[in-house]
């Protein structure tokens, strides 16, 4: 039996340590992983927990991320709790298998430390990897600080393994800004954390060899569409379960999570939409702008997939102008958050002046000042009653102003 880890009421953890402790407390049966910056410390911490006798499960140090996710799929289909961690290029290498994991309805949890994708190579935070996995059929949760990385990783197991869901889940945290920034975290003790998640509930385990099952059959044109539709419904239907798990977590800890987080949106006339740690910067910017009398709020989809589009539209009902901030180069169109927001508004017969900003690529700083500039431009649009600023702008980019209309 694994030793219990004596945690203090408050710990000072970075996002990687927080995620590693969550994996440990979940008593994961198999972790198969490959180190990659900036998520390497998750794997290292986990290895140390194992070396110190805090873990009963298997830790498989594979030879690539492709094999990491493949071993996770094999292990999960075998019938037990499975988790891994990765970033960036590693995530990209996994993509093929991410689709397999969700198609087989395997509740794998992956903590992703978001990082840019090469080329050119860059080890710092942006959301290129998260966006790459957008359509892979995983539930994606966004964490903005170490506490959230810890909390939501615990929640992730409960959501993934719920019999109404049975889908893989990622918890995302910004590379370095969250993963390597130590902050105060209030952990649960080991027993309480495990009890919250509960025992793994097997479904079609391969290791029940007396009742053999076949995973990964080929479904040609008479079958594939029905399977994919069924899978899509499962992820669409996961909203209430996610909300239920968040509620149970709140009951246990007092910490509240919503599928969409908002700050000062009640009376807002303009809104920023942003994901990741920049949400916290945006809150400060909103407070500053409000001092100048600008009625601005900020919105953050906590759950990126499934995308809470109707809820988003509801929140944006009364705003006149919106700036969507995407931390990934959309390469030839508007950013994902822009598109999701536009779709959400249109689908609900709403409209607002909508602009898109690309920011923070490869770990580029985005400060309160930068966001105040965005708020100001958005305010101009609101006041003019039409778009007077570019459709797509770039925040804190050196050189002549770059924009698209």
């Amino acid at each position: 039996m694994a030793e219990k880890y004596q945690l203090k009421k408050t710990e000072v953890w970075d996002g990687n340590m927080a995620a590693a402790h969550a994996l440990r407390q979940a008593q994961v049966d198999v972790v198969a992983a490959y180190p990659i910056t900036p998520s390497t410390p998750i794997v290292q911490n986990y290895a140390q927990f194992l070396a110190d006798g805090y873990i009963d499960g298997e830790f498989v140090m594979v030879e690539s991320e492709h094999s990491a996710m493949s071993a996770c799929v094999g292990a999960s289909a075998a019938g037990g709790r499975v988790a891994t961690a990765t970033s960036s290029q590693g995530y990209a290498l996994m993509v093929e298998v991410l689709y397999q994991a969700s198609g087989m309805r395997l509740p794998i949890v992956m903590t992703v430390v978001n990082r840019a994708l090469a080329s050119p190579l860059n080890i710092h935070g942006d959301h290129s990897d998260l966006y790459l996995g957008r359509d892979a059929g995983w539930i994606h949760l966004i964490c903005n600080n170490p506490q959230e990385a810890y909390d939501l990783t615990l929640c992730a197991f409960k959501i993934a393994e719920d019999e109404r869901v049975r889908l893989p889940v990622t918890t995302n945290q910004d590379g370095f800004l969250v993963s390597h920034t130590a902050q105060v975290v209030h952990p649960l003790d080991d027993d309480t954390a495990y009890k919250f998640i509960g025992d793994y509930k097997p479904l079609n385990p391969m290791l029940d060899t007396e009742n053999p099952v076949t995973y990964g059959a080929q479904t040609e044109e008479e079958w594939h569409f029905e399977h994919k539709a069924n899978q899509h419904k499962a992820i669409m239907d996961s909203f209430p379960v996610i909300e239920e798990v968040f509620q149970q977590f709140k009951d246990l800890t007092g910490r509240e999570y919503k599928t969409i987080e908002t700050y000062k949106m009640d009376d807002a006339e303009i809104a920023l939409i942003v994901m990741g740690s920049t949400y916290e910067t945006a809150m400060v910017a909103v407070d500053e702008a409000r001092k100048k009398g600008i009625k601005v709020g900020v919105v953050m989809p906590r759950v990126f997939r499934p995308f809470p589009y109707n809820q988003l539209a509801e929140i944006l009902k009364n705003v006149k102008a919106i700036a969507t901030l995407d931390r990934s180069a959309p390469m030839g169109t508007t950013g994902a958050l822009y598109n999701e927001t536009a779709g959400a508004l249109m689908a609900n017969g709403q409209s607002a002046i909508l602009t898109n900003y690309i920011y923070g690529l490869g770990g580029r700083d985005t400060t309160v000042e930068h966001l105040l500039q965005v708020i100001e431009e958005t305010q101009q649009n609101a006041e003019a009653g039409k778009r007077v600023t570019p459709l797509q702008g770039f925040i804190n980019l050196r050189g002549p102003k770059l924009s698209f209309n």
Partner: protein
Amino acid sequence: MATPKEMLTTWDKIQFGAVLPSFEDPKTKKRSKFHSYNYKVADWRVEKPVFNPDLCINCDFCWVWCPDSCILVEEVTTKRGKKQAKMVGIDYDHCKGCGVCVDVCPTPIKSLLMFPEHTPIEEALAQWPKKEDKKKD
């Protein structure tokens, strides 16, 4: 045997995660409708192997090399108390007519021979080469 068409289902009734159970009842090893054992490949055949039990020496060569697991055997116990498999026939639902079994059959006059698919078994057996035919060539 449910045909693939009869197996078609709608998106809301489809197998979770496309996972297929081998058995309907694992205890009795009753194979499920998802087992290819319930799928016929007989129409792949142009010629079929016919088995002549009178010549067979139960070497089981055909059993080990049939790629479609369709040599039917029965477990028998010899006088010396050894268990052995006695060749009893061919599973024509799964035989593709490759002819491997005929090729590997070692009896001087083959105990398995290929015949056009529609030849009745009795007719095939009646046409079986005799020892004398063998001597002639």
